[in-house]
């Protein structure tokens, strides 16, 4: 009876998890998603805790309390810090999977080596490998995103990098294969720690050559790994609930990585092993000096007053400057005058999928006025003013026009087809890819140099002054 109740609770949890994700298709129904997820999780925890083999409760209570104590502050971070929080939670997921895999292996080795079937051992190896590589990989990613001083921000590239990385991975797989063939063999007590150490090292080495603009893809890939390690844990523990939840997480990570890769016109392998660094060195040499045309805030405000349709293209620069609330004030000022304002967001803008949307939502900009790149591009000729805030490569027309340029073929927001372009930029250095942005030198483009928050604040003030006059 007890057992049947437990299985029913697990089954209900599976249904609720799928519903939670299903409701995410629209911001309105999404409000139900979290309740469904919490209910499912509570069911699963209660059902598991009441299992007869769970006899020690103190550690469970302590660990749960510890989780709440650390988890609550982690959920209160500023929304500009959401990418690093997400990476950190991938790390926790990987850690949990790796530790459970390790615990199960040593338990079975000491208590019943017969239990270590080939299937289970394969699952343990996959779980431990993916779990620990996700742990260190995500910690590195979180450190880079947070700007931790001893983690290099720029991609670190050294000779034979891919050979070293793949060699390490091959060694880890070899250790794993040895364990599957003979889980209690003479070298097993060495092979298992070696597997763990290599996975940890591989996670670090995989992330150090990756730069900031590739972070959305990398976070998605780490998401998929964390999900797959949960699936493997499900096989180890023979839990269908874990297999399903892990597969949902893994599938989500996969889809997001595919979307990110397509938005950059690159493949998985190119992001993980591609030498973006080498290409950029080649691209920078040989471009002659060109000059920016600057515009004053007053001039820009005048042009915007005449505009009927304004688009705003936000990028990572908006997040860095925490400028989203000022942008909302500008939006209010313009819409109050009857100007139509649309936000156009590139899928890889920011440091994680959907990053810009969350920041704009925080500033209470209604999501009806957010349009996708593919929906805006055909109507770009009708745009009177395109205001580019801290976005660079995603509006670079070279991706359309210059064959051989490193970002050639990447889908872009075609702001260069708008009648007037204002670009807010902090400094005069090129973007992440190290490529000069052609857009900035077009006839209709004017630069507004300065901190995005200040420039937009002044722009809004100027518009208000002009209106009063």
């Amino acid at each position, binding site marked *: 009876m007890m057992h049947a109740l437990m299985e029913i609770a697990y089954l209900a949890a599976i249904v609720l998890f*799928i519903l*939670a*994700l299903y409701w*995410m*298709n629209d911001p309105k129904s999404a409000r139900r998603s*979290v309740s469904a*997820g*919490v209910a499912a*999780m509570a069911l699963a925890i209660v059902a*598991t*805790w009441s299992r007869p*083999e769970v006899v*020690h409760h103190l550690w*469970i209570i*302590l*660990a749960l309390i*510890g*989780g709440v104590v*650390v*988890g*609550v502050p982690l*959920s209160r971070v500023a*929304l500009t810090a*959401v990418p690093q*929080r997400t990476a950190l939670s*991938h790390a*926790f*997921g990987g850690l*949990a999977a790796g*530790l*459970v895999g390790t*615990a199960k292996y*040593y338990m079975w080795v000491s208590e019943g080596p*017969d239990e270590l079937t*080939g299937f289970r051992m394969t699952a343990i190896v996959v779980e431990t490998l993916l779990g620990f590589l996700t742990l260190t990989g995500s910690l590195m990613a979180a450190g880079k995103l947070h700007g931790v001083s001893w983690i290099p921000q720029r991609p670190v590239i050294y000779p034979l990098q891919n050979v070293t990385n793949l060699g390490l991975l091959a060694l880890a797989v070899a250790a794993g294969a040895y364990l599957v063939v003979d889980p209690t063999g003479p070298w097993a007590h060495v092979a298992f720690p070696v597997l763990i150490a290599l996975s940890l090292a591989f996670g670090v080495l995989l992330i150090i050559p990756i730069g900031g603009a590739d972070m959305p893809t990398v976070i*998605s890939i780490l*998401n998929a790994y*964390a*999900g797959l390690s*949960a699936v493997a*844990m*499900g*096989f180890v523990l*023979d839990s269908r*609930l874990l297999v399903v939840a892990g597969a*949902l*997480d893994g599938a989500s990570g996969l*889809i997001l990585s595919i979307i990110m890769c397509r938005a950059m016109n690159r493949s998985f392998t190119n992001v993980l092993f591609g030498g973006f660094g080498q290409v950029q060195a080649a691209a920078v040499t040989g471009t002659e000096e060109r000059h920016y045309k600057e515009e004053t805030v007053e001039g820009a405000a005048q042009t915007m007053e005449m505009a009927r349709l304004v688009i705003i293209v936000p990028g990572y620069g908006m997040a860095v400057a925490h400028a989203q609330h000022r942008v909302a004030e500008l*939006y209010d000022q313009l*819409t*109050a005058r009857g100007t139509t304002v649309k936000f156009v967001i590139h*899928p890889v803008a920011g440091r994680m*999928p*959907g990053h810009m*949307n969350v920041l704009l*939502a925080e*500033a209470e900009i*209604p999501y009806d*006025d957010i349009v*996708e790149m593919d929906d805006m591009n055909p109507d770009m000729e009708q745009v009177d003013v395109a205001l580019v805030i801290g976005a660079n490569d995603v509006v670079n027309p070279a991706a359309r026009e210059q064959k051989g340029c490193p970002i050639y073929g990447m889908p872009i927001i075609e702001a260069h087809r708008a009648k007037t372009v204002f670009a807010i930029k902090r400094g005069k250095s090129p973007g992440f890819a190290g490529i000069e942005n052609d857009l900035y030198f077009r006839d209709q483009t004017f630069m507004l140099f300065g901190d995005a928050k200040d420039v937009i604040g002044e722009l809004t003030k100027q518009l208000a002054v002009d209106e009063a006059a």
Partner: protein
Amino acid sequence: MSRITAPVAGAWSIACVALAVASSAHADVSADASGQNWSSLTVLVLATFIGLGVIGRVSRLLHTPLMSLTNAISAISVVGSIVVAGSDFPTPIRALGAVALFASMTNIVSGFLITERMIRMFKERGEGQKGAQKQ
């Protein structure tokens, strides 16, 4: 979307079947245990397809909350951690389980709370104060 997810899901299921064949080739697997393994693999393949179908329809606006939600969901590994931390196993093994439980619980709490916080911010025109004055 479906054009690209189909091959990925296909590759995933082929990998699963390969795993199953490789491991059931072992002589030490009883018929019963092997049946369990096969049905778990079937569940994995089906759940993956459901996941790809459901997540392919998720609004692009919500990709950040989606990631924090799936993160919390995959912290269902608490189920395994509770058993490892609470069963009558040797102390070092239970300690590993307790740390894993702590990590999963952190993800559950922070994942659900921040997802809730973000989803509540998404408002249509007229729902919030901003932009309400405009048709």
